[in-house]
């Protein structure tokens, strides 16, 4: 693990929306393009960086992901892949949305990709009523409107109830 840490053992402090502070090694923080850009500009690493949109629980998850990916050597791709698939397993929908928004805000592409894919997999091949229930989407179509939408792209609804 130590081998991939750069010669400077710099750390920086991130502050979650609910006020919790996280001390993070710089090479871990660099997994985030947002933080990378901040550090590249004149932002000093001594400052506390506030992340007003991310709560402590989500930030802890995000930093866990970043640490694993920052510390793994490139030859351990297989290990990272299994870490990724375990990482989101059994995560509830609320946590998953917090995570995808955090990854989007902090610009962590790998995390964003797996979280978005997980949401897509939840939609895939499910009847629409079930998708609505899982995501609490309220169907505000009138029956006539809904029928018109189905008719407009009839090919896409073949095989779906």
């Amino acid at each position, binding site marked *: 693990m130590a081998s991939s840490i750069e010669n400077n053992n710099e750390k920086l402090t991130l502050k979650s929306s*609910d006020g919790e502070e996280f001390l993070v090694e710089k090479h871990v923080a660099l997994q985030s393009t947002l933080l990378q850009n901040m550090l590249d500009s004149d932002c000093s690493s001594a400052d506390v960086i506030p992340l007003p949109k991310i*709560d402590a*629980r989500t930030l802890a998850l995000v930093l866990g992901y970043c640490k694993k990916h920052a510390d793994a050597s490139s030859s351990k791709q297989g290990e990272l892949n299994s870490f990724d698939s375990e990482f989101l397993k059994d995560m*509830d*929908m*609320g*946590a998953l*949305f917090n995570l*995808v*928004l955090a990854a*989007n805000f902090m610009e962590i592409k790998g995390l*964003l*990709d797996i979280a*978005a*894919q997980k*949401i*897509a*997999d939840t*939609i*895939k*091949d499910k009847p*629409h009523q079930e*998708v*609505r229930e899982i*995501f*609490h*989407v*309220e*169907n*505000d*179509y009138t029956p006539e*409107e*809904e029928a018109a*939408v*189905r008719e*407009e*792209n009839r*090919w*896409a*609804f*073949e*095989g*779906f109830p």
Partner: protein
Amino acid sequence: MYMPLPCLCWNQEQNVSQCEDRISELPSNLISQILSSLPTKNAVATSVLSTRWKQFWTLVTSLDFDDMLLLQHRSSNKDALQTSFIISPIYRVLDRVSGLDKVRLKCWQKYDVSHVKAWVVAIVKYHLKELDLFIPVKCCTDYVVARDLFSCKTLVILKLGTEFMLDIPVSICLPSLKILHLDRVKFSDDDSIKRLLLGCPVLDELNMNECGGKDILRVIHISAPVLTKLRYCKEYGLETEVSECMTVIDTPALLYLELIDHAAAEGYLVKNLPHIIKADIGVQYDRTRSKSLIDLLMGISKVQSLHLYNEIPEAVPKLDSELPTFHNLTSLVLGAGYVLRKWWLRFLEKSPCLESLVFKEGDWFDESNGYGWDEDVDKDGDEDNNKDNVPSCLLLNLKEIKFVDIELNAVDLRMVEYFLNNAEVLEKLTIEISESIGDG
């Protein structure tokens, strides 16, 4: 007392309720990414969720059509259905989306070449990064002309198939292309492949699976300056016919090579592979053209990890006099063709740094092949008792020997005995019996 509630709050601290519709509130780039990760059919079908979702699917930047998915609920696969249920959705969707990065079109039915041409023209005008077309055509002697495709400056990944004639224009400009897969594509002449590769200056990975020519190609020239991965599987010829085609591989940056050829005749001219790490070679030579195998092995002699699973041509007289020394080879996997002791022993002699040796494939101990202990070597006297004749890798480096996926009762104990007697630094000998009976 626990009362089942219609919805439960997952995080009371923040008072964020699980029953909120959070997906509809996501920023549009996330909605786009989620819908782009779905087959296009599923993405379009989300329009029925609610009025807000009616247009969300048009944000997709990736299209993924599979005609199996579109046809599976139809009772009949007649042409008329194909037209209305596959071709028209593609155009409808293309009509509505604004920007595309990636298009995948996977077909199982056969289509007219004219459709393929039209799709390529319709798709290429988006500045795509990735295009994957797998479409069997009805009449495979018609050319697919795709000039626009071969001047697409943004394209990074291009996968094309299958079973159609591809017209390669004189001038090709694919300056960003890193990955090229061609599956059973036919070219009009020898020069096409060379011309295509010349137009891909940064190509990193090439996979040519059973590609061929309109007529028989004489020379296939694979020349690419920065290519690191090459998989080349030769077209199946007629069973009796041995292809007269010569394949020239000139790729100075290559790290990984996989060659599969069921009937090589003129063979392979492999040059310029100073950095090669791993090679998988399954090339069956015509019995009379043994020199070609030696030439091929010469070309890859700098390799570190080698898997050989061809048959040795009978006409190879004495491998030991012509076989190159594999100075960097640490890992060797030998398949069915190397069953005879005179073959594998030669390889051990020429691989001084070998650390790991694997004998693989269940059928190779077949009695008709002769066992792993051929008699003609035994005639040389009791060399087994003389350590001077033991390959140096056995004395110094070989730590692991494995017999993988072999039949029970087929392990030649004389071989095992030989290794146990002579491999001085052996740490592990594994015998894996097929049908998962267990380790030995």
